[in-house]
């Protein structure tokens, strides 16, 4: 049973560039959430995708956008990169159920460095 996978593992960009990160959810999961984890901090919620639509969003600017594909995989796009965007980006997948209590399972993350 494949867990959550993310690519690439590491990425180095310069200020002003754009980046795309990818995530494949755990088998059987239909919901993908993205988090940003800055050094020494806990993960911060960016947004969540379900049925190919953004379901909710955290306090992140419009430079952060995403997409979910029919196979439930997802992309996170960040435009006009800033130094402060350097972080570990985590993808988590879960299964929507009537009780909405299902656990989110995390991938290994993509380490983004902006120079």
């Amino acid at each position: 049973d494949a867990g959550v996978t993310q690519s690439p593992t590491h990425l180095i960009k310069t200020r002003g560039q754009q980046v795309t990160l990818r995530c494949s959810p755990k088998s059987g999961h239909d919901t993908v959430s993205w988090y940003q984890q800055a050094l020494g901090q806990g993960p911060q919620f960016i947004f969540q995708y379900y049925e190919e639509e953004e379901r909710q969003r955290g306090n992140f600017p419009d430079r952060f956008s995403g997409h979910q594909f029919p196979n439930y995989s997802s992309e996170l796009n960040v435009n006009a990169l800033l130094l402060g965007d350097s972080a570990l980006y985590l993808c988590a997948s879960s299964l929507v159920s009537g009780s909405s209590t299902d656990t989110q399972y995390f991938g290994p993350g993509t380490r983004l460095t902006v120079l």
Partner: protein
Amino acid sequence: AQSVAQPEDQVNVAEGNPLTVKCTYSVSGNPYLFWYVQYPNRGLQFLLKYITGDNLVKGSYGFEAEFNKSQTSFHLKKPSALVSDSALYFCAVREVNRDDKIIFGKGTRLHILP
């Protein structure tokens, strides 16, 4: 607004001793509570969760957590620490509604001393 506090940046415990990692939370309604562990250069691994029912929740790798509603706490515990338990531990909360946004604490680094 929901929030999570982990008051200790670091906890040091001798191998074989019991360990406790503290967590308090704030939500307007009933909480769902989670503990995750993060090893170096790895993503978060799920340890355990409290949804409802018994206040003592048992999870992976011998960890357990006790939900205390009056103290709004959800402390992580293990009776006998292993050196391999050394890692970064995150407490997280989600409110009981259809909102799946999870709020994480800042993390507690656990050092198990051989």
